[in-house]
């Protein structure tokens, strides 16, 4: 079992999804065990493949990614291939996807119990796992695009799981349409690259670009279009509007798709095509700018929102923005490290929120408070996740924040660095706020407080496992730990774009980040400890700004205005054209004309013999004249 068998990893969940969709409802327990079994099998196979990869790296020499797959269509010079390539970048992603999928599916065994569409839920979960795994293992852009779309569909289906609720259906539609706009960019970018290089295969494209075969302007256009696709899926500004609304879906779905896996597909895409971004001048700057805007937008909104899942969603946006900043600094390593650790603590935060929701049936944090006394385990793991998000050492989140600051310090200008530092403070602020308002202090709603309880084992132990990983996962950056696991070194040595980086420390940067994190946490306590009077006073001091942020900067309203005034108007015009011109005139027109002609013609059947005789005579005369003229 080696890297050539990597295709099994997405194939097993795919087959399972097919089985579940077709015959799921006839299986015992609607087939949930089959889905969990499939993803576990994928994970186990992945471990074997990973070992093979580690051995290949250890043996030294030039490393070639393990290939597998089959040609699907091949004629003349056109080739479509279902191909998989297993390299280090793919290894990181598969770890995240398969492990978090497994955790989420086990958690769902408890959370989704009694749901009316229980079997369908697991079928789509398997399908999603299959699509996402295909996406990260694909060796050519076309297969990646297919998997990209597949992931989008599963997201739509899962967000709209409770589709009897109008808001859920709307949210699913919004997610799909918004990411679709980005997907168009991805498709056109793919086609442009194919037209200039002649192949979809990624390694061949990279070789061609390195050799300088692609014109600079053309390359920049393609890269920006690919970036649009990444921005759509990873909810960067201005496509960020779908992610908070996607919280309408079940919480495990939020944990899997909108925290750990699908939203990092965009980050993965940029990381995978980094050679293109480096070759096209100026694109990395755009990446950085987009990431910064997203980070600040979401961090400020997270400070004022009161729905627990929405706050975590905004923190996801925050992290995604910082990942893009990392990519913009040219460091695939840091971005992937962020993806890796973020998967654990963000999934943990979502699943723990799900435990809270399941126990109290309430999402508004204004109604909560003091829950730590009733749900101590959940409170502990939630706090661990929140602190990891804030960047408190020695939790995993600290390591990637540190690496991020270091890389920004080295590769970007001072302004960017200072902005990232500010974002660190704000992140710590709102995460502390969340923890304090939910779990600490006095309960604000007695009924909810009385009702709260620890979750069922399936939910409890998955969150605990993720909590443990949140604490320890960050240590993979150290070379010693890496070598202990059989890899050539720490994370930086394992995942890289150009050259491996060993873990370094810049004392000044690290110190300032720790100070800012502590300052943020302290500020959180200052404003929101106890009855949170100081926070309320601060909110009343800047009413207009507060309203602006609370209304999500009116971006959603702006989009709705555009849809109402532009899109729907165009649609109405096109619809009018189709009805009036194409159908009534084009299709019905000749029929109506014929009918009218027939109506007019019938009047010549007068029934009177003299009329007929007259016409006959006229005809004879005409014929005679013609015959006479022709004859002479």
């Amino acid at each position, binding site marked *: 079992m080696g890297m050539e068998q990597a295709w099994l990893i997405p194939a097993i969940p795919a087959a399972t999804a097919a089985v579940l969709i077709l015959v799921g409802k006839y299986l015992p327990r609607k087939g949930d065990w089959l889905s969990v079994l499939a993803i576990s099998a994928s994970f186990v196979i992945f471990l074997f493949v990973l070992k093979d990869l580690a051995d290949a790296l250890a043996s030294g020499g030039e490393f070639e990614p393990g290939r597998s797959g089959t040609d699907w269509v091949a004629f003349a010079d056109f080739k479509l291939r279902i191909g998989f390539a297993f390299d280090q970048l793919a290894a990181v992603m598969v770890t995240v996807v398969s492990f978090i999928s497994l955790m989420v599916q086990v958690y769902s065994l408890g959370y989704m119990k009694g749901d009316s569409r229980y079997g369908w839920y697991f079928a789509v979960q398997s399908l999603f796992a299959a699509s996402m795994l295909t996406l990260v293992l694909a060796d050519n852009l076309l297969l990646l695009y297919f998997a990209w779309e597949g992931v989008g569909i599963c997201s739509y289906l899962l967000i709209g799981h409770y589709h009897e609720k109008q808001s859920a259906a709307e949210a699913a539609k919004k997610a799909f349409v918004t990411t679709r706009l980005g997907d168009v960019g991805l498709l056109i970018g793919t086609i442009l690259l194919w037209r200039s290089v002649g192949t979809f295969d990624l390694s061949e494209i990279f070789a061609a670009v390195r050799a300088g075969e692609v014109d600079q302007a053309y390359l920049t256009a393609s890269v920006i279009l690919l970036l649009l696709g990444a921005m759509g899926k990873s909810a960067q500004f201005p496509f960020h509007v779908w992610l908070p609304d996607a919280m309408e879906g079940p919480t495990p779905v939020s944990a899997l798709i909108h925290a750990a896996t699908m939203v990092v597909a965009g980050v993965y895409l940029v990381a995978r095509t980094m050679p293109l971004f480096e070759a096209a001048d100026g694109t990395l700057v755009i990446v950085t700018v987009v990431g910064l805007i997203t980070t600040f937008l979401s961090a400020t909104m997270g400070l004022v929102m009161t729905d627990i899942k929405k706050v975590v969603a905004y923190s996801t946006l925050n992290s995604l923005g910082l990942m893009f900043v990392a990519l913009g600094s040219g460091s695939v390593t840091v971005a992937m490290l962020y993806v890796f650790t973020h998967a654990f603590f963000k999934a943990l935060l979502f699943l723990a929120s799900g435990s809270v929701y399941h126990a109290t049936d309430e999402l508004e944090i204004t109604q909560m408070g003091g829950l730590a006394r009733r749900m101590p385990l959940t409170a502990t793991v939630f706090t661990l996740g929140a602190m990891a998000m804030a960047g408190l050492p020695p939790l995993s989140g600290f390591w990637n924040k540190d690496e991020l600051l270091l890389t920004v310090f080295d590769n970007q200008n001072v302004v960017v660095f200072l902005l990232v530092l500010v974002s660190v403070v704000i992140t710590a602020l709102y995460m502390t706020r969340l923890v304090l308002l939910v779990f600490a202090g006095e309960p604000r709603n007695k009924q909810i407080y009385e009702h709260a309880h620890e979750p069922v084992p399936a939910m409890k132990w998955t969150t605990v496992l993720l909590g443990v990983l949140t604490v320890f996962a960050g240590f993979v950056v150290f070379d010693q730990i890496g070598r202990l696991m059989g890899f050539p070194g720490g994370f930086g040595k394992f995942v890289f774009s150009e050259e491996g980086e060993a873990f370094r420390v810049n004392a000044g940067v690290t110190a300032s980040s720790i100070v800012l994190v502590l300052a943020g946490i302290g500020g959180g306590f200052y404003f929101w400890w106890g009855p949170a009077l100081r926070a309320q006073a601060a909110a009343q001091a800047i009413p207009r700004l507060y309203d602006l942020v609370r209304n999500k900067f009116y971006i959603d309203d702006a989009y709705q205005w555009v849809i109402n005034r532009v899109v729907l108007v165009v649609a109405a015009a096109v619809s009018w054209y189709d009805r009036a011109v194409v159908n009534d005139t084009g299709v019905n027109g000749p029929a109506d004309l014929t009918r009218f002609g027939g109506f007019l013609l019938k009047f010549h059947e*007068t029934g*009177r013999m003299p009329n007929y005789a007259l016409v006959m005579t006229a005809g004879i005369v005409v014929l005679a004249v013609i015959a006479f003229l022709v004859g002479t």
Partner: protein
Amino acid sequence: MIPLEHFLVVSAVLFSLGVYGVLVRRNAVLILMSVELMLNAASINMVAFAAYTSPERFIGIIFAIFIIIVAAAEVGLALGIILRLFRNRRTANVDEVDQLKW
């Protein structure tokens, strides 16, 4: 020495008059009379050609005889139809028999 064309012209005029009569007259019997006119014109034509172009074979004359025979038969039957029509509809005007219309 009457040229052949004179007879043919007379025939043509009589024929045209007959056509006019068929188109214009309302009473069925009058239309029948116009038809007789046309048949006679045709007979003149036949006989004129026979006399002037091939007198030894007199086919035109034989033809004219047959025209007369058939015309007689036809008139008999046509009048029978007109009488039946008159009995059913109290009218002999072809204008008023227009049931087969739109």
